[in-house]
C-alpha cells in the first residue's frame, strides 16, 4: 500500500505562533501498513503531546498486532501510555482516526470528529462521520470515560479498488456530504494523485492543496492522509 499525507497549522494557530496539533503516524512492517491521524485538543494544555502519544501507540499496536486487534486492548494501551506521561482527560485530549491493512483485509477506527472515507467498487463513501458531544464545538476525545462507548471500529476485506482517506475536522467538510455521505469528487483526485505518483510527490500535492485550497475555508488545523494500493 502507498500512503501520502500532509498537515498544516490553521490560521488561528499561526497567528498565535502555535504549532499544528494534527499529528499523522505511518508504519509499514511485515506486510502491515498503518496510518493514524490524531487531532490534539486545542483547548487542553497537552493536546499536542496527547496526539503524539496516541498516534504513536496506535500505529505501533496495529502494526504489531494486526491479526489480534481489539479496540478494548488498544484503548487500554493508549490509557496506560497517557497515564505514564501524566496526561489525563483534564489536561489533554485528542481525536483518533486510523486504518491498517495487510494484504487481504483492513481495520479502521475512529473517535471524535474528522472523517474516514473509503473507495469501494460502488464509489467513495463516508465510512465514519464526525461525532460530536452534547454541546456545540465539543467532540469526544481520548482519554475520556465516554471514548470507549464512542469508539467506532470496523474490519473488512480489501478489494482491488479499496482506498482510504482520513481527514481532520478542518478538512472534512469539503470532502464529504453530510446529507448523502458521499465523498466529494476531490477524493477520487486525491487517490489518483497518489496512485500515479510516488509517496513523496503525493505528499507535495496534498500539501500544496491544503495550503492553497483548504485553508481558504477554515481557520482550524488541517490534515489529510490517503492510502491506496
Amino acid at each position, binding site marked *: 500500500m502507498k500512503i501520502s499525507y500532509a498537515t498544516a497549522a490553521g490560521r488561528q494557530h499561526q497567528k498565535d505562533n502555535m504549532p499544528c496539533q494534527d499529528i499523522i503516524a505511518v508504519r509499514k512492517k511485515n506486510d502491515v501498513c498503518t496510518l493514524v491521524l490524531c487531532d490534539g485538543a486545542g483547548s487542553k494544555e497537552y493536546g499536542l503531546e496527547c496526539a503524539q502519544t496516541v498516534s504513536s501507540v496506535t500505529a505501533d499496536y496495529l502494526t504489531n498486532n494486526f491479526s489480534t486487534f481489539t479496540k478494548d486492548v488498544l484503548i487500554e494501551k493508549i490509557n496506560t501510555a497517557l497515564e505514564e506521561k501524566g496526561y489525563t482527560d483534564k489536561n489533554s485530549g485528542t481525536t483518533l482516526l486510523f486504518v491498517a491493512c495487510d494484504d487481504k483485509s483492513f481495520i479502521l477506527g475512529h473517535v471524535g470528529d474528522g472523517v474516514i472515507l473509503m473507495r469501494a467498487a460502488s464509489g467513495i463513501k463516508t465510512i465514519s462521520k464526525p461525532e*460530536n458531544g452534547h454541546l456545540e464545538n465539543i467532540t469526544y476525545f481520548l482519554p475520556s470515560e465516554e471514548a470507549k462507548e464512542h469508539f467506532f471500529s470496523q474490519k473488512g476485506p480489501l478489494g482491488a479498488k479499496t482506498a482510504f482517506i482520513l481527514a481532520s475536522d478542518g478538512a472534512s*467538510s469539503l470532502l464529504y456530504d453530510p*446529507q448523502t455521505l458521499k465523498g466529494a469528487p476531490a477524493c477520487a483526485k486525491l487517490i489518483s*494523485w497518489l496512485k500515479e505518483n510516488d509517496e513523496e*510527490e503525493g505528499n507535495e*500535492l496534498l500539501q*500544496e492543496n491544503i495550503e492553497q*485550497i483548504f485553508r481558504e475555508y477554515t481557520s482550524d488545523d488541517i490534515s489529510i492522509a490517503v492510502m491506496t494500493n
Partner: protein
Amino acid sequence: MAKILLEKTDYYTNKAPRLPICICIDNSSSVLSSKFPDINEFIKNVIEYIDSNVECKTKVQLCIVAFNSEAEVISDFAAVDGTLYSVCYTANAPDLEKGIKKCIQLLNDRLRVYVEESISYYLPELLILSSGESSTDIEHIAQRLRIAQSAKKLAVTPFKIAKNDTDTLNKLTTDGIVYTELNDFTKIFECLKSGLELLSASSAAACKTLKSQAVGWEQLVEKR
C-alpha cells in the same frame, strides 16, 4: 512536478436550507404485529415521495428510529436516495422515553452539522408513531419536548397507532393535536405530504408567511 490544484467543483459547498424530519416508530408489543406491513408501506411512501420531488430531495433529511425496550437507529439523517427501510415487530415493552431521547440526540447532532456548515434549516420535525404506552415515566422527556416546541425549536406530531389511551401522546405536544387514524397510514402520509408540498411550493423567503392547510403542519414551513 507540475502543480495541480483542486477545482471548486471538486469539493462540497452546498448551502441549501435543510428540513430535518425524524420519524420515531413504536415497534414494541404494544402495537399489533399485523400493523407492520402498513407501517412499512407508510415508510416506503414517504421515501418514494421525497425521492420523486426535486425540492424535497434537495432539502429534506430523513431519520428513522424504532423503539421497544431499546431504541434502534434504522437510518441516521441523510438525504433520501431511494433506499428503503423497514421496521419489524418485537415482543418487547415500549420504552417511549428511550425512543424520543434517541431522536432528540440525533436531531441535535444534525443541527450541529448545519451550524458548523453554515447551513440554514427549517423547523425540525419529529413524528412519533406510537401506541401511547410507555414502560417508563415520560413526564421529564414530555416536558423537554413541550419546552422545545414553545421555544419554536421543534415541531412534534404524534400519531396514535394502537387502541390505547391517548393521554400519553397528548403530553408530547403543546397544541394538543394527536392524529388517531388507527388503521389508515395513508392519511398520515397524506398529512406529511401536504406539509412537504408547501415546502416545495415556497421559496425560502416566503416560508414564514405560508399557512398550511394541513392542520398541525404549519410549523413545517416556518424557517428559522
